[in-house]
């Protein structure tokens, strides 16, 4: 209690009355901004003096008319092997068991898991590839359903990143920095574009696991960082209580909850006038959002009305809450509700050993549902303005980690090349960008850095990645830091 009194006194000492009034009006302006909606100039009250900085922030409107209104990001956590799925390298079969030439690796930094290996025997994919679609893309037999949607998809075979381990690499993809603490991608999008549905958060996270015992995920990946907390990703879990503490506890009815929120708002407002912390307003906005979500979320999460053929399409697993297939179906339902950023994480792709066995499990858990999602979005008229992204945090190396046999091998992390795909709004259909060398080790054509990829997706969403900035601790931050170039080649 004494802390608050101290803070209060401090605030009052610091501010002259005049200053106080203008700060308060700015604060109220900020309260309007805090709303996920109506953040444009048409609805805002006349700007208070000194609010220029606030007003300069690009809130609630794209920089230019967007191609994509929404994104579903099917993040494959653990890093799927591009050599078994998308990047066909017959040379590896030819040189099976021979050492990776030093001229290829060029002293590339390896993880502690293989750096000590005495040899780096090249391992070929145990799975066959065939050509599909107009782009003649080579796809592995591990992904028979994905092979069927090639003509809707742009593959980038020349992705590269800087991080070599999972946590920094996923964090880099999702926040633009290898260290945690920055706002996540979805928060940036929510901050930049606002929400298209006042009853739903604009950034929703869905989690699933293809296998147990793989790399963990952390809440920092959907944290708002230093952005206002209304932009935080909301995790929807499977089961009767999809959002923690959203439902009223036993004995509290809707009217009671309303009265409680109204009383709380008065208290918060009083506190805000003393402390002037805009986070108080953001918090209230979140309470109100949660109140509206109490009806909207159960409606959206209810998949019992879906016809049987939809479950045929996504696979029987889609009936089982918490699976990747069920989450894909939910993702579709969320974008039907105009949720801006639907972030799926699917864990289990970290195949250091027993790769041939485990990658089959993983491929089966995602292949059908990923392809079904594209087909389903298309028939609903949603693929035209929804961008779907599929990919992991890095790739996997050309040589075997551990003992190489005809039946079994493993692959270590490989940041220098990997494949991701995108489909839907604003990207080319049936297109392949980039090429790696014959070992699938180095990129030889059209490299795409993580920041380039981020800049491109932001561009599709109508955001100039260089202009979406937030001033924090004395400098302006953005998702792409000081990097990133829009990859024009893949835009339709």
């Amino acid at each position: 209690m004494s802390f608050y009194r101290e803070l209060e006194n401090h605030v009052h000492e610091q501010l002259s009355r005049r200053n106080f009034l203008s700060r308060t009006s700015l604060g109220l302006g900020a309260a309007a901004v805090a709303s996920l909606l109506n953040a444009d100039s048409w609805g805002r009250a006349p700007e208070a003096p000194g609010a220029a900085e606030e007003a300069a922030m690009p809130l609630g409107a794209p920089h230019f008319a967007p191609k994509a209104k929404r994104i579903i990001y099917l993040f494959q956590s653990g890093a799927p092997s591009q050599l078994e799925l998308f990047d066909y390298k017959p040379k590896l079969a030819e040189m099976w068991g021979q050492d990776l030439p030093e001229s290829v690796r060029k002293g590339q930094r390896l993880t502690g898991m293989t750096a000590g290996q005495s040899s780096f025997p090249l391992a070929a994919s145990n799975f066959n590839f065939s050509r599909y679609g107009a782009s003649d893309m080579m796809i592995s037999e591990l992904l028979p359903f994905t092979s069927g949607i090639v003509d809707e998809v742009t593959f980038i075979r020349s992705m590269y990143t800087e991080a070599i381990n999972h946590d920094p690499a996923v964090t880099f993809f999702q926040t633009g920095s290898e260290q945690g603490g920055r706002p996540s991608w979805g928060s940036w999008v929510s901050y930049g574009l606002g929400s298209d549905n006042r009853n739903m958060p604009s950034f929703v996270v869905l989690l699933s696991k293809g296998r147990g015992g793989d790399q963990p995920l952390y809440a920092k990946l959907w944290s708002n960082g230093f952005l206002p907390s209304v932009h935080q990703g909301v995790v929807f879990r499977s089961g009767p209580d999809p959002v923690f503490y959203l439902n009223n506890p036993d004995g509290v009815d809707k009217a009671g909850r309303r009265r409680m929120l109204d009383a709380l708002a008065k208290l918060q407002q009083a506190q805000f006038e003393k402390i002037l912390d805009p986070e108080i307003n953001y918090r209230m906005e979140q309470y109100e959002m949660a109140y509206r979500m109490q009806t909207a979320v159960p409606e959206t999460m209810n998949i019992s009305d879906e016809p049987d053929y939809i479950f045929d399409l996504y696979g029987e697993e889609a009936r089982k809450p918490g699976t990747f297939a069920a989450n894909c179906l939910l993702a579709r339902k969320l974008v039907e509700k105009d949720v801006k950023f639907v972030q799926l994480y699917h864990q289990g792709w970290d195949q250091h050993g027993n790769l041939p066995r485990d990658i089959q499990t993983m491929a089966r858990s995602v292949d059908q549902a990923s392809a079904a999602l594209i087909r389903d979005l298309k028939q609903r008229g949603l693929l035209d303005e929804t961008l779907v992204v599929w990919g992991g945090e890095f790739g996997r190396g050309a040589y075997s980690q551990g003992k190489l046999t005809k039946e079994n091998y493993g692959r270590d992390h490989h940041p220098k090349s990997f494949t991701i795909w995108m489909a839907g709004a604003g990207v080319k259909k049936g297109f392949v960008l980039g090429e790696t060398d014959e070992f699938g080790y180095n990129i030889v054509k059209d490299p795409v850095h993580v920041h380039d990829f981020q800049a491109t997706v932001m561009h599709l969403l109508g955001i100039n990645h260089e202009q979406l900035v937030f001033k924090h601790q004395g400098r302006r931050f953005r998702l792409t830091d000081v990097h990133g170039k829009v990859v024009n080649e893949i835009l339709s």
Partner: protein
Amino acid sequence: MILTSLLQLSDWALFIGRMHPLLVHLPIGFLFIALFLEIAQRFGKVAVTEQTKSFVLLCAAIGATLSCVVGYLLASEGGYDEEALSQHQWQGIGVAVFAWLAWLVTSVRLPEKTGWLSLLYFPAFGLSVLLMFFAGHLGGTLTHGDGYLTQYTPNPIRTLVGMPPREESESGGEIKPLANVSEAVVYTDVVQPILATKCVQCHGSSKQKGDLRLDGFEHLKKGGENGPVFVAGKGAESGLVKVCLLPVEDDQHMPPKGKPQLTTAQIGLISWWIDQGAPTDKKVQELEKNPEIAAHLEALGTGGAGTTAGGPQAKPGVDLSKITVGEPDKNDVAALRKLNLIVSPVSKDQHIMEVSAINAPAFSDGDMPLLQKLSDQIVWLKIGGTEVTDKALSDVARLKHLNKLYLDRTAITDNGIDHLNTLPNLEYLNLIGTKVSDASVKKLADLKALRSVYLWQSAVSDSGIVQLRRLRPDLHVIGGLSAREVQDFLSAGKKDSLGTRTKAE
């Protein structure tokens, strides 16, 4: 002579040579003074002594001689049209020779002043002045290119002196917009006009700096004294592109500092043309282009109906960034928001907006007039799942910039579709789950701007969809997945034989 040959070997020669355009104005000035003095004296305006005249002519003669020497050094640099240069040289020498002669007559004290020698004065002086005009003009032509002086001659004067009327294409530095960009020949219509306006002045028929001519493909191919200026297929590695990209302070940068520079778009287009193998006969639509290049190309057009840079396969859509509308009235926006409609800007710097009824399922025909207040601004309208009927579509028809329209899961029927043909920008139409039937197929095909139409769960039959696709091959007609398509999708996935193969390997 020894001096000049020595000078030729050094930068000094070039340094002094470049003073020629400066120096030539000395004899011109002195000759003019002499001329004016002569005329004024005739009319008794001034009293001029022979000594004064003689001194002015001496100055003119010395200046002309120096100009000749320095001009010779400049010529040794090369890059000029041989014939014009030789003419200019002899005319210049003539100016000097006759100026000396005129001076000689006025200054040399001869026994009989009215003797035959003094008869030479006027012809010598007159020739010197006359040759000065010719040499001066030709010198200008050598520096600035042919036709520089008369380029902007207005048409009335042209008729008087018998010059052909001025053509628009000569309108110096300006490139004429193309009527039909996709049909334009890349080299002739895109690349050559850029070179003609920015390069040919120094690299053309009258001047060939660095032995390079850029006024025809055969010259371009030949290159200059430093070899070829482009490598077909490699725009970025081609000298032609590289010199333009150097910092303007760099000595190698072209066009030289102070001259009109190529725009980024122009450099991009030349580079793109070289990337594509530098063809001379290919049309814009025959070459591959990225969106940036497509945009540059589009900018070359007149903006008319024929300006489709994307080629037949990529029909460019409605460019929302081109729509300019006034700011909406805040009260009108607020009135919509009161209905729980979501009104959001589509682009920060324009006033176009999206209106969505996702939180307003009770939205109905009676609310439609409120949208009319924003009929300029609304480009995307999402009223799927609401109470609207066909009646609402007569109001929708007045949203003149409407680009996307969602009517899914509403009571819309074939009658409503009639109203949509007034919307020139309508590209996306969602009719999922409506009563729209085969009777609308023809009407939908007539919506010219339409790019995709969604008919899943509508009353349009499979044969109606086939018919629509036939009427409009460019239109994406999406009818939803039939039971058969679902089966096909599933059987494609059943090729999966992995369970058995890992062991077998």
